[in-house]
Structure formats: structure tokens, C-alpha cells
């Protein structure tokens, strides 16, 4: 699973090799700094796993940072690379113009004729010229297997690859080579020896589990350096690759901060002042128990204090939500107008969890909220499976805690019982406060009740309290022991 506990315990980072950064979101974290400088790194994977794009992204990101690189592909046409790059908003032409990137498409033209043996000597001369011309330190060799396969001689193929590897080493270049690996019966086994030649080897794959496709990446070896040893899911967005690893940096949370009002004064009184900053609070209850009203009370109060709130909404459209909250007197429109409140509304099943996570992380990075609402986490199951939901929420809460963001989650529970059953998604280790809501039928009328069943490290009411949703927010009554 994507969140093994090995990393959570925090393995020792060590490295005796000099590295260069890939600048790909999350990748340097897994590689404990980057790829080995002056050595060959192998990106290996089946067709369509994203090897070529990831390698191109490394060069593009470095080029944008002003560090020149050369991309040689034996498989793709330059215009195809260009159109992939356009999809990510990378302007290859401008980078080439600026002398930060050179692309050589050494693809064998399909209408050409083979008459005898050939070799890599020519391409190496041309490569050398390009490297010298732009002062490149890093070079990508994409799919040399596509080219060498034409030799139809495994021994010669190996010899040429070995020659290439030696040439790269002797040139003191940092290189990334992409190569196809064994995939569903098709055998590329004769390229396995490349795993031994390379100092760093990454495997990429993509799998479908519960009808959700997830791309994954794993470091198989890294000579002379420690590295993240898990399989890391990653997403490809309109801005390139995002890897959100759960690594040793995780769970180094800030201590819970001071209380901030929940927006319901009577609730603050029951829990020593309100929600604590950097904490995670879960409000759980059946349908129509007032979960979103509690969340909206908090949003209104926080935004009125000039604090930013990011609202991840999986239930209904945000404008429907805003208009629903007018009836209990919670007008969120001014907060939207002043930009203190931002909604991200998505259907859970619209994308995989990595994409959901990336969307949330990007919104957090751009908006820098003090508070985060997730409404409702029960909908996250629709991202694929209970495990997918767990993975998503754990990593999201983890990031919030690292950034000192107050997280407020709502959950639609299946039962109206005030029980320990919280979510079915066991997040109890990261949740600091749990508030349960229910509707109880008494003498033919429904009565709203709430109880705080957990509030980590703080005193709180242990009673069940009746409450009402009035035209002026939530009003909580005197409690009784249940």
C-alpha cells in the first residue's frame, strides 16, 4: 500500500554520492535529494507508464531553472514531444531558443531501408556537439532499445548499450536512460543487465485496482545512497508529474495550537474554547443532522476574523451549499466575495485519488488557507475503495498538520447511534476531536443531539447536549449524561 509504515518510522538518510535535483514535485524527496551526478539513472517500465514524459520533465524543469540539458529520443518524433509538452504548458521552443534545451529525434525513419549493420558512433558525435554547444550537464537517452532492436542481435545490442554507458561515464555526464521492462508476458529481459550498469534504477508502472488506474513509481536501487523504499503513487496533471510521498517528513506535526472559536459560542464552552489550530476535528452524523451547518458556522467565524478557509466539497455544488446555509442565517457570500473562502467542488468518482490529492495540495499551496473543511469524507469512498479513501484522507490530514492548518471533516455515518463507529475508514490516530450528531425521536418529534466523544489532551463535556438550528445559527442546550 502507498502508505507503508516503514517510512513513518523514519529511516536514516545517508548518501556518499553527489546528486542533482530532478525538480519534479516529490521525486527528489523519494530520491533523498535527486539523481546521482555523473552517473546513469534508469527509468524502466512497460509501455505507457510515463518514462519518457518523466525524463523530459526532469530536463524541462531544470532548463526552466537555467540548467541546460539534451534530450535524445530513438522513439518519438520531435513534434510529438512538443505536443505532449504543450499539454503541460512547457514551451520547448522557447527553452531551445534560450539554449537551455536541445532535442534530437534519432528515430529511424519508418520508410527507410536497412542494408547491413549500423552503430551508435554517429549519434554520439552529434550528441557531443549538442552537449558542448549548450553546455549541458544532463542528458536523457530515450528508448535506445527501440533503435537497437533493429540490429536483431542481442549480443550487439548489449555491446552498443555498454558502449553508450561507458561513453556517458567517460563524458562525466549525468544521464537518464529510459528502457522498456517486462510487461504482461512481453519479454524485454535482455535489457535487465542495464539494471546492473545504472547507479540508480526507477521502475514505473500503472495498475487498475477497483476500476481506478494508479500510476506508481519505485526506486529499485540507488548505489551509495538511501532512498524511499515504498511504491509511490503519482499523478500526471496539467502541470506535470506530482508525487506526494508519505515519507519520514510526515507526521512531524506541529504541536496543537491555541483554540479558535468554532463559530458556535456554546460549543466553544463545551470544549475549552473551540477547535485547536493544527488539529483535526471530525463531525460525524446521519443525514440531516446538521454537519454542514457546524462546518459553515466555523467558516463564517474564521473568515470574519480575516482567516482563509479552503472548502473541499464532495457533496453538492458550492452555490447550492451557500444558499442552503442562508436559512440558518449563515451567509457565506461575503467571505467568497472577499476571497477569504474558496471552494473546490469535485465529484469523488471523477478522478483517481492521486489527482484528488494533487488538486487539494495545489489549492493549499496557492491559497495558503489557515483552515480546511472536507465535506464529507464519507464521499471519499467513491474515489475507488475504502483503502483509497483512507490513503487520500491520511495524506491530506498529514499535510494539513504539517502546515499548521486546522482541519474540519464531516462524515455521513450510516447509523444514528452515538457510538465509537466513526467512519468505517479508521482515521482515529490522526483525528484529535470527534463530535457526533444525531436526530432522536421523542414523542413524535425529532430532537437534535450532539456529544463530544473525544478531544485529545483537553477537557471537554462528556454529556449529550440537545441543540437547535435556528435562523441565527446553532444553539446548544444543557447537557445530560447518557
Amino acid at each position: 500500500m502507498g502508505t507503508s509504515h516503514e517510512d513513518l518510522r523514519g529511516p536514516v538518510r545517508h548518501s556518499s554520492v553527489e546528486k542533482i535535483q530532478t525538480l519534479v514535485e516529490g521525486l527528489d524527496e523519494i530520491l533523498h535529494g535527486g539523481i546521482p551526478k555523473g552517473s546513469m539513472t534508469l527509468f524502466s517500465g512497460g509501455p505507457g507508464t510515463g518514462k519518457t514524459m518523466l525524463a523530459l520533465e526532469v530536463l524541462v524543469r531544470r532548463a526552466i531553472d537555467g540548467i541546460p540539458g539534451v534530450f535524445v529520443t530513438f522513439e518519438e518524433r520531435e513534434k510529438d514531444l512538443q505536443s505532449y509538452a504543450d499539454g503541460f504548458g512547457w514551451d520547448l521552443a522557447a527553452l531551445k531558443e534560450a539554449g537551455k534545451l536541445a532535442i534530437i529525434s534519432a528515430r529511424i525513419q519508418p520508410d527507410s531501408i536497412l542494408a547491413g549493420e549500423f552503430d551508435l558512433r554517429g549519434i554520439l558525435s552529434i550528441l557531443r556537439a549538442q552537449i558542448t554547444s549548450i553546455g549541458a550537464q544532463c542528458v536523457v537517452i530515450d528508448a535506445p532499445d527501440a533503435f537497437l532492436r533493429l540490429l536483431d542481435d542481442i549480443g550487439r545490442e548489449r555491446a552498443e548499450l555498454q558502449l553508450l554507458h561507458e561513453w556517458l561515464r567517460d563524458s562525466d555526464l549525468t544521464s537518464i536512460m529510459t528502457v522498456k521492462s517486462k510487461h504482461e508476458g512481453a519479454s524485454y529481459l535482455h535489457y535487465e543487465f542495464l539494471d546492473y550498469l545504472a547507479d540508480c534504477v526507477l521502475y514505473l508502472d500503472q495498475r487498475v485496482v477497483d476500476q481506478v488506474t494508479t500510476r506508481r513509481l519505485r526506486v529499485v536501487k540507488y548505489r551509495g545512497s538511501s532512498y524511499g523504499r515504498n511504491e509511490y503513487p503519482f499523478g500526471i496533471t496539467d502541470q506535470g508529474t506530482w508525487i506526494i510521498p508519505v515519507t519520514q517528513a510526515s507526521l512531524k506535526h506541529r504541536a496543537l495550537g491555541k483554540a479558535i472559536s468554532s463559530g458556535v459560542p456554546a460549543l466553544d464552552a463545551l470544549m475549552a474554547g473551540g477547535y485547536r489550530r493544527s488539529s483535526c476535528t471530525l463531525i460525524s452524523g446521519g443525514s440531516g443532522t446538521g454537519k454542514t451547518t457546524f462546518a459553515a458556522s466555523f467558516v463564517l467565524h474564521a473568515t470574519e476574523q480575516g482567516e482563509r478557509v479552503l472548502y473541499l466539497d464532495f457533496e453538492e455544488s458550492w452555490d447550492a451549499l451557500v444558499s442552503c446555509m442562508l436559512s440558518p442565517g449563515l451567509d457565506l457570500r461575503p467571505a467568497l466575495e472577499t476571497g477569504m473562502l474558496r471552494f473546490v467542488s469535485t465529484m469523488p468518482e471523477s478522478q483517481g485519488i492521486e489527482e484528488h490529492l494533487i488538486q487539494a495540495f495545489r489549492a493549499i499551496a496557492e491559497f495558503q488557507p489557515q483552515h480546511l473543511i472536507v465535506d464529507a469524507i464519507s464521499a471519499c469512498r467513491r474515489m475507488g475503495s475504502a483503502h483509497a479513501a483512507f490513503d487520500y484522507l491520511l495524506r491530506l490530514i498529514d499535510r494539513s498538520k504539517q502546515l499548521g492548518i486546522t482541519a474540519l471533516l464531516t462524515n455521513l455515518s450510516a447509523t444514528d447511534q452515538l457510538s465509537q463507529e466513526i467512519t468505517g475508514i479508521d482515521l482515529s490516530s490522526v483525528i484529535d476531536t470527534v463530535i457526533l450528531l444525531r436526530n432522536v425521536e421523542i414523542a413524535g418529534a425529532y430532537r437534535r443531539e450532539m456529544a463530544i466523544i473525544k478531544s485529545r489532551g483537553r477537557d471537554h463535556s462528556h454529556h449529550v447536549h440537545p441543540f437547535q438550528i435556528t435562523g441565527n445559527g446553532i444553539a446548544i442546550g444543557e447537557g445530560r449524561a447518557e
Partner: protein
Amino acid sequence: MTGTVAESRSRSRYVVRLFVAGDAHNSRIARENLNQLRDLLNDTELSIQVIDVEENPQLAIEHSIYVTPALQIVEPKPPTLVYGNLRDKETLLALFEKSGNY
């Protein structure tokens, strides 16, 4: 020097460009094979330009030739690209003959 051997010959029936990489085995063999091929054809009919990509990588880039050795058959038309050390002379002769006969 780019090794222009016989480009000046005007109105040759066959015009080819051979891209080689220095003294690499296959490049050396390709040169020899091309010379033998010229002997098989009427000497005046084949115009050969040899481009050494080690000396002149820019020319190779301009012609989008990255794999060596490679032979561009410029005339007769249509232009054809042949990769390899030209060991397979029958194929080459067929290429010349076939397109030269129209």
C-alpha cells in the same frame, strides 16, 4: 574537411550522400562497399558525397541523419534513405536500377 569526393560531376544519373562516423568499423565498411558499388555501376554515373558526422555534426543535424552509416539516395527520385554498412549490395543495386529505369 567534409570529404567531398565527387560532387562536382554534373548530371550524374545517381547522386548519393554517405554519412559516416570517423573510422568506426561500420562506417569504414560502408565506404568500401560504396566504392565497390561504384565499380559495379558505370563510374561516371554515380556521384558520391561523404559527410563525416564527427567532423561536421551540424550537417547531419540539418539532414536529420543521426544513425551511421546512412546513405541518402538523392537521385534518382524519390529520395531514399538506407541505414547500415551497405553490405547488402543487391538491395542497393535494385534501388538504383529500379528507380533509374523509368
